[in-house]
Structures are given as structure tokens and as C-alpha cells.
């Protein structure tokens, strides 16, 4: 398991764990970042640790902190490249 923060830009991963305060975990789930959701790290902020995520039809900016993490597992690259023009399917 990796932390979402460690994922390089352009890579597609699957969420396997949410950890942190209850309100953080709840909010992430409300945004649709639940277990098994496939997300792409679109880009990283040039100035720091803020990242841009894409999943489904959503785009969000996210900066995690030491006590709040999203655990992910890598997906095979070809899944993302099969249909590059289509929005990512939620669950693979």
C-alpha cells in the first residue's frame, strides 16, 4: 500500500484505505473517495504537496497531512490508457 501523496503525476491508483479524523474520513467519502474508487493523480502543485485528483467526473485539489492519509494500490497502466478520452469508470 502506498500513500496517495507518493503517487507520481499521471498514475492511476485504487483507494484501499482512509485514515485520519472522523470528519476527514467522512468528508472524503462524501466526495466519493470511498474504498475501491479508482483515481488518477493528474498533477502535483509546482510549489508543494497539493495534488489534483480525477475520479469519475470529479476533479479536486487535495493536500493531505501527516495524520490524514489515503492508502492506495497501483493499477495496471493499460487500464488508464485503454480509453483515454473517456471519464474513468469508478470501479474496476
Amino acid at each position, binding site marked *: 500500500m502506498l500513500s496517495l501523496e507518493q503517487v507520481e503525476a499521471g498514475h492511476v491508483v485504487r483507494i484501499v484505505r482512509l485514515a*485520519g479524523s472522523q*470528519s*476527514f474520513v*467522512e*468528508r*472524503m*467519502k*462524501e*466526495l*466519493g473517495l*470511498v*474504498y475501491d474508487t479508482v483515481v488518477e493523480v*493528474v*498533477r502535483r*502543485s*509546482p*510549489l*508543494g*504537496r*497539493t495534488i*489534483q485528483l480525477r475520479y*469519475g*467526473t*470529479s*476533479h*479536486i*485539489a*487535495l*493536500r*493531505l*497531512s*501527516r*495524520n*490524514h492519509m489515503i492508502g492506495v494500490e497501483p493499477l495496471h497502466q493499460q487500464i488508464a490508457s485503454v480509453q483515454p*478520452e*473517456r*471519464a474513468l469508470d*469508478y470501479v474496476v
Partner: protein
Amino acid sequence: MQARSIPHVALVGVPNSGKTTLFNSLTGQRKKVANYPGVTVEPSVGIVRQHASAIALVDLPGVYSLSPKSTDEEITLRVLEGADPHLGSPDGVLLILDATNLEKGLLLFSQLASLGKPMLVALTMIDEVKRRSAMLDDIQLEATLGVKVIPIVGVKGIGITELRSELVNIEHWRTPFVHVPPDATIEDRISWARLVAAQVLREVHLDERSERIDRIVLHPLWGMVVFVLIMALIFQSIFTWAQPVMDWIDYGFSQLRAWMVGDAIAPPLWLDFLANGIVAGVGSVLVFAPQIFVLMVLVTILEDSGYLARAAFFVDAILGSFGLQGRSFIPLLSSYACAIPGILSARMIPSHAERMATILVAPLMTCSARLPVYTLLIAAFVPPVLVGGVISLQALVLGGLYLAAAVVGLCVAWLLRKTVLSSDRTPFFLEFPPYRVPHWRNVVVRAYGRMQDFFQTAGTVILALSVVLWALASFPRVEPQPTMSADHYRRMQLEQSYAAKLGKAIAPVFAPMHFDWQVTLGIIGSFAAREVFVSVMGQLYAVGGDDPSNLGLQHALQRQLQPPVAFAVLAFYMFALQCMSTIAVLRRETGSWRWTAFAFAYMLVLAYGAAALTYNITSALLS
């Protein structure tokens, strides 16, 4: 407060769902309370009329769920639960579903359905979905949800008439199907929402246009260029578009006062009160209107276009290292026009510590009321030479004052977050809406509303204080001598007044930087609004007029003040919280006199220290 003779409907939706646009199209401008950048921070009530019927529509801050995580989200829950003492329990709920963001909207629907209230759904961003050549089945959606679904193209107003007819017809609304039990987990709700979204929305393509724009706007280099250009445009527009209008307003009011008083050396008390108390007070409120309006128009355009969220992504990393976050950007940017809308817009920051830190440093940003003071003192004391043959030293000093305030503000925020407001670093998130072309009517209506609220909160305080200051400066009365000129008499009157006594009593406090009682009086006057300093100087040095570009006043100041004193005054104005309206808003938003006192005290210490330091350094350099 609205009489409960007509039904109340709560307008709910996730953030960025086009809620405020729809509210404006439905209600026109009949707003009670304005909203602020980023979110609707207080319930605004508007009346929707169709034929002979009417309902009251309550615009609520956007929420993702019914478990609030920030102050503005709490407002929504409070109103929905009927816990708001003014609004009571709503008779129905109008949910906005953003067709491009269906999943989150449906999650919210599943929770609202448990409230058991009659509901209506407005499906927005239909045009956006069509543009991405997706297929949307609103009939299927209506069948699934169990309530009427009305597709809307907000900008063009398509569907608005039908929505309005349905809205006022509240007795025919249906109660939604409860698909997910009230005690279900968020995962269950998300699964349901995804299922429904997949049924009604097919062939969703990526928003190619937004992706293309993002590739430039969020590019490490070009993104920075775009960001700097947009910020430069904002500041430029405040100076070049708003400043002339402000000068006209200022000139208009001083002409009006001169005309009212006429040739009289000592006008009768009532006329003096009217001209120099009321009219001057109204003038010093109205003079802010152009800047606040221009800034609010620009902020609203940036917000509606979708750029503001990207800018927040960009600056989040910088603000994050000072213990703030991307959402602090809008409050701090707005504070460059006026701290009041800035402080209010901090409500959308979920973390208490980060919100407080943002609020406490917002008044350090260079608001527009400081500008007349800066302009006057810089014009009088900084030589108009060119540095490197390109940029004038005066512009450089002015720019330096703006920049230094921001840097000091960030350092104070960092210090606060390390000490009194320490908390774990909280995560930051912000949704990116797709880019859209802002609709001018919506922009103007919202900017106007934001300006109106400024007048309601700040205007009354400024006007009241102007009257108090007039009274302090006008009593005890001095009898005019026949040989006196009007200017001479005004100076005499001021010198003998209670205001002067107050200035003289306080002046010893400022002994380290050699502020005389006149400067001290200017500082006291600034509690109404900082730019009052200019008119106090104008009256004291008997040159008349309160125009900062007035050469007579500049020369008088050059004779009266040592340059180090003038620079120390500049430093003092950079940091001091000498604005009663801001103090009142700080009290309201922090909910505590202790934090308000703390803000006042730390800024006073900063201002005093900076002034003393500036005085000593410049005296050493100039001697």
C-alpha cells in the same frame, strides 16, 4: 423578517452547483442578505412570484451532506432542521442537482429524502452535459427519485418559468422515495448514487475544454504567469478604474459641503452639523463603493469562471507552509479592498484554527482606506525620482508597503498557528468546477449584493463615528473674530476642541516616534475610517480640502512634519487595527471579545513597534 403567511422553501445543493445563479434568476434582486465569495454564508431570503402565488426561497450555503464540517454548512443544517429562530421549519426543499456532478448531488438527495419533506429537484448544467455529448434521462431520474425533476439551463433561463410555476404550487409537491435507510453508511449512499447516476447519465466524456485550459493554467511556469497577470489586473483595476470614480465622489462631497456652508466664516451649528457631520460622514462611506464594487465584480468573475479554485490550488502550497490553506486565499485577497468582506468569507474554511488565523491576519492586508493616507504621505515625503530610469521611487515605496503587509500577515499567521492557534495540520480539499463563461447579469447582481452588505455592516458604524468625531471637534464652540478667514476659524475651532484635548492627552504615548497632537488626532479620527486622517490634516493645517493630491496640503505637511515622523506614520498605518467596523465584524465572526481584543492588541504592538523602529532608522539615515 418574513411573515410566515407564505410557504418557505429551502434551496439546497452541493457547492458549485449553480445555486446562487438559480436563486438570482428566480427571485431577481429581492435579497435580504448578500452573499460572499465562495459561498452563500448567510441564508438569503428571496420571494418567488408566479401569477397570484408566492413562496419565500431561502438560499443556503452549499453542503455535501447533512453532517456539517464548517460554519457555513452548520447554517444549512440548522435551517433544514427548523432550528433557525427567524426562519422556522421550511415547508419544502428545492434541491439543485448539477448534471455534471450527479453522484454528490444524489448522495445529498438520499439524506434529504429522510427529512420527509416535500421536494422539488432542479437539474442544472444540462447544456454542459450536452456539450460533452453525454445522454441524460431526466424522466428516468424523476421516476427513481419520486419527485418532480425540472431541467434548467441557468444562463439562458430555459426551464425557469416551469420551475417557478412548480415552486409556487407547493401543495402538489411529492415526498421523495426513501431508497437508502436513514442509518445507512456513506458507502451505501455512494453506491446508490453511483447506480442511479449510471442509469440516467451515459457516455460521459471528459471535459476536454477544461482539461486544455488546465494544462496552461496549472502548468508550473505558465500557470504562475497567468496567476501573476490576473493578480496584477485586479490591483491595476482597483487603481485605474475605481480610483477616478472615488476621486469624483470625494470631490463631489467636498463641493457639496463648501456650497452648503457658503461664505460663512462660522456657519450656524445645525448647518455645520449637516455639512461637516452628516454629509462628510456619508461621503466617507460612499467613497469606498467603487473599489469594493470593482473588486467584487472581479472576484465573482474569477469564481464563476472556475479559475478561483485553480488559484487556490496554486497558492495552497504557499499558504499551507504558513499554517493557512488554499481557502484562505479569497478572504485575504478580498481584504485588499476591505477587511470586512474578507473576514466574512473566511466562514468557508472548515478548520477552526485555520479560519481564526485567516480572520486575525485579514486586517493586516492593505485595505483601500489606507491608500489615501499612503498617497498623501508618499507624495509629500518620497522624492519623485526614477529608480534605474524605469520605475518611480514613489511607486516602489507604495508597492513595498503592499507587499510588506502581505509578508508580515503570513508571518503572523505562521506564529499564531505555532502558538495560540496550534492544531494538527488539517487536510485541504477543493473541488474544481468546469470552466464556464460567467454571466454578466449574475456577476453584477452578486457584486452589488456584496457591496450592499458592506454598507449595512460598515456604513452605519462609519457614519455614526463620523458624527461623534464631528461633535468632539466642534465643541466647545469658539467665537469667530471678524478678521479671521474661514480656514483660520476652522483651525482655531479644532485646536480648542475636545478632540484636540484628547489628542494632546494621548500624544505622549507616541513620544518615541515624535507624533505631535495633530498626528495623534488624525490617528484617533481614523477609527471611523482610515482615510479620515487626510481630512483631519487638511483642517489642522488650515489649507482646506481633503484631497490627498492637494499640493497645498503636501507642502503644509512638509513644513509641519519631519520626514522620519511621516515615515513612522506610514508604518503605523500599515499595521494598526484602527477601524471600528472591522472591530465590530471581528467580534461577530470570532464570537468573542477576547479574540477581538487580542487582534487589536497584537496589531497595535506591531504598529507601535514598526513606527518606533522606522522613526529611529530613518532619522539615523537622513541625518
